[in-house]
């Protein structure tokens, strides 16, 4: 019986049997091996170790990150007071003229870094939510992060007449309290995604009403300040905003990457993932927590610019190929998207500065429509 013969044939003569089967997982005799998902495999038989190097995702991430950094560098140079590139470099090192030092190091550098870090944080947060919900339209808004941050930020602006730094901390406090409250309210012998969304909707509505109330009771110029914050803007972002975000990214992203290794199993459904040894609840809760924390940090710094969280994972996924939004590539895409949008927002109607949130919405809306058209062609819509 061929069935009987085939297994032993595989054991005794791997190359032959594979050739007999008509195809092979790798070209016979090739030194480089590839794992089934396309990653390069490096093996050391002596150590009994092997490592998968996902080539395409890595290349794409590096390329997109490089683009982001290039745009960032460019943004340091352009503006109402153009600074030549050589002067920019000099100022970065601390040897430029007083003027260009001020412009570069106090105004543009923190703003550019804010754009990069906020974009990266939103990108990862969106990727986490989309992977866990297995839904390309999921975003951190669901748990009311944005609404909580907004309500507290507007409160700080309108009632407490806070400085930008105080507004940031207020927003952070608001989003933290809101997320915790929503989690606790949806906990009833465990948290199901659906209940979380419903509670999130309720909480968001309530907090939005608070925001609207404050907007109607404010002095008109306070209302205008609040309005600027509400559209999502990187105007005037300084080092006090960038630092907490930087720390947050530095601590949370590595944890997310470690937990994210099990995401490949979660993609297969809860039961299959558990059967393969993934700690489903732990990984999911941990990742959600990190996603919420990153979104909270990002929104506190720049206001609600949520299209980035929705769109970056999709961009990353289409560039990288493969089966799910990858965390690092989404971060790179988010950073690139936001730093480019901020540059456009700053320069499009110079000297008037638009909020970056408007530019991302103007870019994001057609992208959504494109997703619509694509989904229709593939036939997976409806």
């Amino acid at each position: 019986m061929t069935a009987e013969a085939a297994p032993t044939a595989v054991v005794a003569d791997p190359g032959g049997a594979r050739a007999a089967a008509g195809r092979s997982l790798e070209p016979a005799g090739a030194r480089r091996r590839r794992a089934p998902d396309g990653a390069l495999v490096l093996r050391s038989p002596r150590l009994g170790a092997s490592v998968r190097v996902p080539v395409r995702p890595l290349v794409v991430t590096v390329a997109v990150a490089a683009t982001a950094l290039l745009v960032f560098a460019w943004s340091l140079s352009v503006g109402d007071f153009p600074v030549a590139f050589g002067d920019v470099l000099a100022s970065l090192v601390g040897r430029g003229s007083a003027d260009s030092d001020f412009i570069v190091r106090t105004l543009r550098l923190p703003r550019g870094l804010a754009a990069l870090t906020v974009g990266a944080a939103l990108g990862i947060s969106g990727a986490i939510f989309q992977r866990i919900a297995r839904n390309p339209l999921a975003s951190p808004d669901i748990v009311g992060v944005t609404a909580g941050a907004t309500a507290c930020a507007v409160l700080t602006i309108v009632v407490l007449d806070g400085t930008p730094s105080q507004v940031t901390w207020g927003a952070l406090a608001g989003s933290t309290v809101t997320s915790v409250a929503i989690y606790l309210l949806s906990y009833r012998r465990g948290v199901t995604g659906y209940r979380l969304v419903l509670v999130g909707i309720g909480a968001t509505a309530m907090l939005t009403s608070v925001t609207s109330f404050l907007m109607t009771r404010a002095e008109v110029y306070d209302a205008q300040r609040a309005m600027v914050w509400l559209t999502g803007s990187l105007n005037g972002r300084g080092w006090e905003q960038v630092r907490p975000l930087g720390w947050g990214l530095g601590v949370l992203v590595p944890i997310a990457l470690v937990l994210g290794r099990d995401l490949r199993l979660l993609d297969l459904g809860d039961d299959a993932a558990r059967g393969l040894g993934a700690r489903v609840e732990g990984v999911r809760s941990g990742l959600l927590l990190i996603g919420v924390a990153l979104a909270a940090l990002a929104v506190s710094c720049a206001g609600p610019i949520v299209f980035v969280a929705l769109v970056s994972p999709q961009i990353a996924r289409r560039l990288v190929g493969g089966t799910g939004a990858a965390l690092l590539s989404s971060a790179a895409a988010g950073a690139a998207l936001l730093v480019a949008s901020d540059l456009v927002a700053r320069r499009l109607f110079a000297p008037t500065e638009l909020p970056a949130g408007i530019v991302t919405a103007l870019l994001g809306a057609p992208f959504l429509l494109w997703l619509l058209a694509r989904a229709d062609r593939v036939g997976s819509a409806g």
Partner: protein
Amino acid sequence: MSARPSGPLGDATTAALADDRGAAALAARGLSLAYDDRLVVDDLSIAVPPEAVTVIVGANACGKSTLLRGLARLLAPRTGTVLLDGHDIHRLPTREVATRLGLLPQQPIAPEGITVADLVARGRHPHQRWYRQWSATDEEAVEAALDATHLTELADRTVDELSGGQRQRVWIALTLAQGTGLMLLDEPTTFLDLAHQVEVLDLLAELNRRERRTIVLVLHDLALACRYAHHLVAMKDGAIVAEGDPAAVITPETVEAVFGLACRVISDPLTGTPLVLPIPAARRAPRDAPPAPSPVGNGAGGRAR
């Protein structure tokens, strides 16, 4: 244990697994399983015979899927324990359980755009570590699994473009690649046509025969269940009504008790296993009247195996 079995996984791996498999008994004692406040399985005890094919049958919502999920450690029991090799399955590390027990759940989700080989490769996860991400053993296991399920030609296709039967074989290949001695499958044939159902079940029977894997299935089709099962478990309302050899379990009385179906049981002319024939409504005679002569000719008594 008899002489070392050889199998597609290569001698070393198979030998290592064989020692596990001999003792890979799965059992439950006094198991109660519930969803929120609804008790589905109540005080059930079962011992899954090693190296045999066990099939669980029963009417809809009798708790067979729930029992399987409880055995597979997907559901925490309200009371009672599930024992894997004599240890409480909920105390064992998750990863270790995953190297001994493989599960094919109902309606598994294949990520969009994933290839067959990639999906099957994910079955190797319990054996991988952060420093051992894709070893030669992993590669061989995946190849062997694809070979055993006759999917080698399809290895580069995306799972979305395959037929239902092929997709099911991919999931079985994944469980195979996991290299476990125990395989639990929750209704693996439900959405397949007859040819594919037989194909899948033949594959499982072959795996059991050649590699001595213990297989536990939930099936709807009684005829196929009787054909392939070494040990049949009939459930109703969260309890086991009868278990054992199919010929002993499937009697008109048991079928009536479990399914509420009046029937006659004959011996399958091809395999000799029990074949259930529902009595047509028009012909259902009052209980103490002698049954009308059956056109099959084998009579209700033939149960030779």
